[in-house]
């Protein structure tokens, strides 16, 4: 039998040849077994991800309160979002958060990881990595509550500012129209810096030390090493960091909800908060779904190019 012959072929046969044999047969036993292994996960994925996703897209074309009858409204929900400055403003706020959740942690993470890699490979480096990574193991809701206290008018941040003579700039950071969004963003930096640092540092440890050595022999300083060797070779890791942090920024909910709930006014309202309010407080499921679909599209529009430029072309 062909299948038996295929299975009985020596394991040492080149992979490319094996693939060719398999692909030439529409249904081989191996592929059936492979699919069976994947099936449980695929079923779960279909039930809990694909089905709700398609349902959300469907709901976005209806006016529906979640209980009564659904009324087809076509693209009206999307038009409402584009017309309403409060709803559109949430997307603008999310893009501002990208700077704090993504650009700053990745940039700082690269610098910090590079310093740890170069000058503190021993215990000091391990301590630094642990300290920086700690925010990752604290639930975001708890982090939000703690930062709410720290950033209050009488909180530690203002006390420190007072102590160094900057009392004039103290304020209730999370209640200030101009500073609430950067304050929330700062919490994001605190949470995500450790993640980026550890991921990038792991990438650096895999780089061939000979590259750095020969660069140093050629007289390269730290900056040249960083820009000419470290960053280009860490393209993959940087891509992963950017992908994860940008999604965290655009889909932000917990930190914002716990610290400001979108206030003051709508200064920190982000799509996640607005979707929650539309769906559960206002019972406007259609509009909430439309905003979700727009948010997902925005995430894909930003993430897919990053993935494209970071694809492994070495093969």
């Amino acid at each position, binding site marked *: 039998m062909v299948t038996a012959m295929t299975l009985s072929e020596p394991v040492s046969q080149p992979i490319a040849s094996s693939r060719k044999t398999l692909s030439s047969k529409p249904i081989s036993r191996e592929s059936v077994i492979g699919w069976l292994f994947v099936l449980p996960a695929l079923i779960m994925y279909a039930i809990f991800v694909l089905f709700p996703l398609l349902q959300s897209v469907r709901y976005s074309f209806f006016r529906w*309160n*979640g*209980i*009564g009858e659904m009324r087809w409204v076509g693209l009206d929900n999307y038009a409402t979002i584009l017309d309403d400055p409060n709803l559109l403003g949430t997307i603008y706020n999310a893009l501002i958060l990208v700077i704090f959740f993504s650009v700053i942690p990745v940039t700082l993470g690269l610098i910090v990881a590079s310093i740890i890699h170069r000058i503190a490979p021993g215990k000091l480096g391990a301590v630094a990595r642990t300290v920086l990574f700690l925010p990752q193991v604290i639930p975001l809701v708890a982090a939000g509550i703690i930062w709410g206290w720290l*950033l*209050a*008018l009488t909180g530690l941040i203002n006390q420190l500012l007072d102590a160094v003579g900057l009392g004039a700039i103290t*304020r*209730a*950071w*999370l*209640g*200030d*129209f101009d500073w609430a969004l950067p304050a929330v963003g700062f919490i994001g930096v605190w949470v995500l810096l450790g993640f980026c640092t550890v991921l990038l540092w792991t990438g650096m440890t895999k780089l061939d030390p000979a590259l750095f050595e020969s660069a140093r022999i050629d007289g390269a300083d730290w900056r040249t090493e960083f820009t000419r060797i470290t960053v280009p070779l860490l393209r993959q890791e940087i891509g992963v960091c950017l992908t994860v942090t940008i999604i965290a920024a655009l889909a932000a909910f917990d930190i914002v*909800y*716990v610290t*400001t*709930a*979108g*206030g*003051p*006014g*709508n200064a920190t309202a982000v799509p996640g908060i607005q979707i*929650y*309010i539309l769906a*559960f*407080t*206002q*019972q*406007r499921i259609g509009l909430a779904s439309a905003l979700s679909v727009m948010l997902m599209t925005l995430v894909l529009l930003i993430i897919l190019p990053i993935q494209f430029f970071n694809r492994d072309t070495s093969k």
Partner: protein
Amino acid sequence: MLNKHKFVLLIAVIMLLPMVSLMPVVAAQDAAPDCGTEPVVLNAYFETGFDIPFRLAEEFTRQYPNVTWDIKQDQFTNLINSTPRLLSGDNPPDLIRLPTMVSFAMQGLLMDLDGYAEAFGWNDWPVPQLDQNRVAEDGTRGSGTLFAMGLNYSLTGVFYNKELAAQIGMTEPPATLAEFEALLAAAKEADLLPIMQWGSARSGMGLAFPLQALMASVGPVGPINDWIYQKPDATIVSESNIEAAEHLLRWIEAGYFPSDINAIEYTDANGRFAQGEGVFIFNGDWQNAVYNAEMPGNIGFFLMPPAEEGGAPAAMSAPLTFGIAANAVNADCAAFFFNWVASNETAREIGVLVGGSNPGGPSGLEMPAVEEGSVTNETLAAGVVVGEAGTSMDFIANATSAIFAQGWTPELQKMVGGRQDAAGLLEAVQAEYERQLEE
């Protein structure tokens, strides 16, 4: 063989059978429903942080041991979001704290309580108690079918720190708005914070309390209630309401509120007030028990004074509203609980001592005794004044389910941040109100 008489008798018996089988039902309808003697588990959703329903549930089980409770609790803001799904779900609650009710009533999710009102004689209670929980067919509140009951009837006004008030020369509560504003100015002059208030989006903007108090001080309460009850063409943008909002704006600009108000949570505001920050705070009598415990002998209460001397003071007074899901399994027992809460002596005591508010119920029932010196005495007395004057209002935040979160809170926060004026505030809220009613 059947003879003619026997045949007629048989036919008569057959004809009568269905009627006989209906008799117990008819008899049951005549008697007021109760919890029976079989074990009953009441499926309830209560609001976290408010002890009164929990204490009432405990006492109810003590008196009726066949009734036990399956109580789930959540924050008020979370309840607002989950109520429609809880009511329409597979295990609908027998009793649930209702943040708002019109949309749920219109969607057929709440049980019509008119039958129970008839059976228990609730319709004979003083009128305002039930009116706030009635919804007409066109969706306006204040009349129509009864869809909810209050566990007690809260009252809002101005609490004050007696020591600090004495410092600014306040010997008795102000009789007019001008006198009150003079006291606020005196507090500011004395380097005291005139008014402590909360204002974070998470807690909901507490400036809605002084704003509504000002509305009722400078204008009539009728149009405010019309707006809350969603009467046709009702508007919040009136001359007197703009005047009230202008007063509030002047208070903000004069620094009468804490500078970090947009970031202050409800619990923090009360904690700071109890520690002596703020001469006054606008709040409701549900906070009495905490104030009595944390500021014994140092807490006073007065109703927001009218603008005109000799005018009647008005107040926001709303029931602690609970409803029964349309498909609730133990609706009779839940309705019996409502009746018990208002009429049982121990339950009424819990309503006053734990809840801090008037327990309502039939007129003529004695008000439970309150400890001498407790601020609850002052709020209960104020409730009588408002009741006699007929100047009670529901809360402007309860007009629609989302008007507080999407209208009052962000717009008042903008006013604090210098980004909204008096007329703009009311116009923005009115636009949001109309948009929500359109939905």
